[in-house]
């Protein structure tokens, strides 16, 4: 099982619903976010193009944050989801320094927090909160090893990219372009 997510940049409008839904679902403290939306724009008026992406932790296969954790709090759960076990985390900050995507943040309670692909929802057969709420339905989630899952189907149909592939982390968040 290899969980992955694909975001269709053609449909994403940057409404940030994913960010708010994640915040309420996961009780993310105010002032922090597990996901964020980025707009890249280039050209000169009126020859312009825009790409909007909903980003979060990439749950990399080659996750540096798991490698560098001194206690093993940062570990791989089912399907390759990268999870922090709160009571094993000492708050040393190594994982935050090691993430090229700056996906982690220091939770006010002391441990390090980040997107969990809503593993508590996946266990109930639900989709992550962001995928479930997205009004444009541009967030696809599923098991890459299952050829019939949403994400496998859409990745086969469309061209996609990942962010900073040269960092070598093998991210599992794909952007359909």
């Amino acid at each position, binding site marked *: 099982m290899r969980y992955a997510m694909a975001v269709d940049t*053609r*449909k994403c*409008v*940057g*409404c*940030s*619903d994913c*960010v*708010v*839904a994640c*915040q*309420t*679902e*996961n*009780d993310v*403290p*105010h*002032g922090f*976010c597990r996901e964020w939306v980025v707009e890249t*724009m280039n*050209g*000169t*008026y*009126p020859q*312009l*193009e*825009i790409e*909007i992406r909903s980003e979060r932790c990439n749950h990399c296969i080659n996750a540096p944050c798991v490698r560098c954790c001194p206690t093993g709090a940062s570990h791989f*759960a089912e399907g390759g989801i990268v*999870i922090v*076990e*709160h009571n094993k985390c000492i708050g040393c900050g190594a994982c935050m320094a090691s993430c090229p995507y700056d996906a982690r943040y220091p939770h*006010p*309670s002391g441990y390090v927090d980040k997107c*969990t692909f809503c*593993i*508590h929802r996946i*266990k*109930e057969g639900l989709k992550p909160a962001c995928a*479930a*709420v*997205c*009004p*444009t*339905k*541009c967030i696809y989630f599923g098991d890459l090893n299952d050829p019939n899952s949403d994400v496998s189907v859409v990745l086969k149909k469309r061209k996609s990219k990942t962010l900073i592939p040269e960092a070598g982390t093998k991210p599992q968040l794909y952007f359909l372009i």
Partner: protein
Amino acid sequence: MASRRDFIKISAMGAGVLVLTKGTFGAAKLLTSPDEAKKLKVDLKRTPTYCEVCFWKCAGWVYKTSEGKIWKIIGNDEDQHSNGRFCPRGTGGVGMYYDEDRLKTPLIRVEERGRQVFREASWDEALDYVASKMKDISSKYGSESMALFTHGNGSSYFTNLMKAFGSANIAEPSYAQCKGPRDEAFLATFGEEVYSPEVTDIRDTKCLVLIGSHIGENMHNGQIQEMSDAIDKGVTIITVDPRFSTAAGKSKYWLPIKPSTDIALLLSWIHEIIYNNYYDKNYVEKYCSGFDKLKEHVRDFTPEWAYGITTIKPDLIRKTAKEMSNASPAVIIHPGRHVTWYGDDTQRVRAIAILNALLGSWGRRGGFYRPAKYEVPSAKIPKYAEPKKAWTDLFPGKYPIASSPVSNLLIDGSIPGNKPAYPIKGWIVNATNLISSIPDQANTLKAIQNLDLLVAVDTMPMEITGWADVVLPECTYLERYDVLRVSPHRKPALALRMPAAEPMNNTRSAYNIARGLALKLDLGAYFPFEKQEELLDWQLKQVGSSLEEMQRIGVKTKEREADDLYFAENENVTFSTDSGKIELYSKSIEQAGFDPLPKYTAHEEPSEGYYRLIYGRTPQHTFGRTSNNPNLTDLMHENTVWINPKISKAWGLINGQYIWLKNQDGVISNFKIKVRVTERIRWDSVYMVHGFGHSQKQMKRCFGKGASDTRLITKVLTDPLMGGTGMRSNFVTFVTENSEKEVAS
């Protein structure tokens, strides 16, 4: 009351128990780690509601923790408005409930040691005060001198109250400040308005033409969802906008039009479609009148003519006209929603309506569908006394096409200097922040100074409350019942709103407030049900449901009575116009003394060093209503002013710099605004999101953040047909150093 009102900054007051959860501010801690989901039996309670953060009214579920605290809001899968997915403001609605800056208790304006302040009062006191003042006004001037400005679901209760009281001067700013012109234009053309949610069949359309509509930035939930579905199906989107909007970013064609010239473009499209025979001949022959007059009217409006005015190249105009026609009848020239731009807006939307009619999209799949709704009876109440004076009597002859009362006209009627036929002396303002929604703030304030009574009903201490005599705090939609939602859609549907929590502090629902006031005015007979639950249960039983059922399912949809979502092939349709046909040439508008066919008029352009102020929406906020919502300020806490790099270079402005804006009348923005240097905006304009620049200190998160565009909209181009206030003819220049102190309100 003192003869001159001061703006009172509502300080942090409020007895009453502030219900805040422990742990992190915001939703209660339910799951602190993924492991806890296993431990906690996820036995969540949920109650149905429909959202009040904007007018889309998506139905959903409020989930609560096992301790009964509001946790999150999720869409109801059965709901046609949201299809189970709420927008960011709806999802962030929990923040409205938990906002500690909410109004907590009724307030009455008093004079204390030479200063005007608010004193906390009990509901009895506050309602007594309002009732006695209303009776004063009624005896001195007549009941018609009371006016109601309202928005949202509480409107029906306050409308009931006002009509019972004897006044029909009830205005919704969403008419004259927003969608009024388009409703009149479609009424004049098709005999029917476009409704809310708009009856645009976006999910099946092949070509979507947006005139300024920034779907994707305006978060019309259903429309964004359907546009996304349409994108998957390969829709062609044509966006006409001087700004590279998000929708433009997803468009096949973006027409970077010169601002204020849209009518010219529309007329040239009409010309192309008629003279190239692209139009739907059968449809036009069968359903439309006035075609020949229209054809003659647009004879000279060629793409070349339009090019000179709009700067859109002729071949692009031709290409897009052809594109639209190829898609016909599955084409939508979107009517828009906020269309009060230049004062000739009814005529512009008339052109849009005509274009739709020519392409045969009205009543066809992929165009506009026929909505259906539940007919729910109202409570049996005594007949209203017919008011002796109507709003149209205030300034006879003005705005003849308006089918709803015009808010700005009522405001003008409150200023003696305008010599209205009778004075408006008292306002009840429900759930609308007039200071931010009505342009020409100075005029609104002048009106307010002449009032004997100003009552503000609101959940937050918005600017209007600072001018009120009495502030009545309403609880949020998560804490109350409300009217049944019977909005029209593809299938008739009912949605129930029920409280997920008790009203916080000393707040009450709109029903409660209106009924309480009615009782004080001896008008209790108009609110026969003491509890809303009883009224709702009675209403639901009349349509084959019950309160108990709706509490369980939230949304009830039924099949249409007939298979008439679209016109059947060759169906004989009678339209509700004078002629019974779609009036391409509008006789009713002609009779009122205006152009029966739209004409292009040039509008004012900015002078040297000034830039047209264009404003718009962001999907993360609903106007100024959510500016203080903690979940949403996390996303966006201030607006920025978009400036083209050529201009910023000439002015020496850099990205991230804070400046003031000064308009053509010398009015300076109340707070500084951050500069965003971007190619997305035309060099002759600047853009900012509406709803920031709040000046009520009690709203701690949004006070002083960003700037208010309303403050800079001092020049209003009023639509002579129906009173719509055109707001896009204001021009601003940049001020990098400002010695003026911050201005209140």
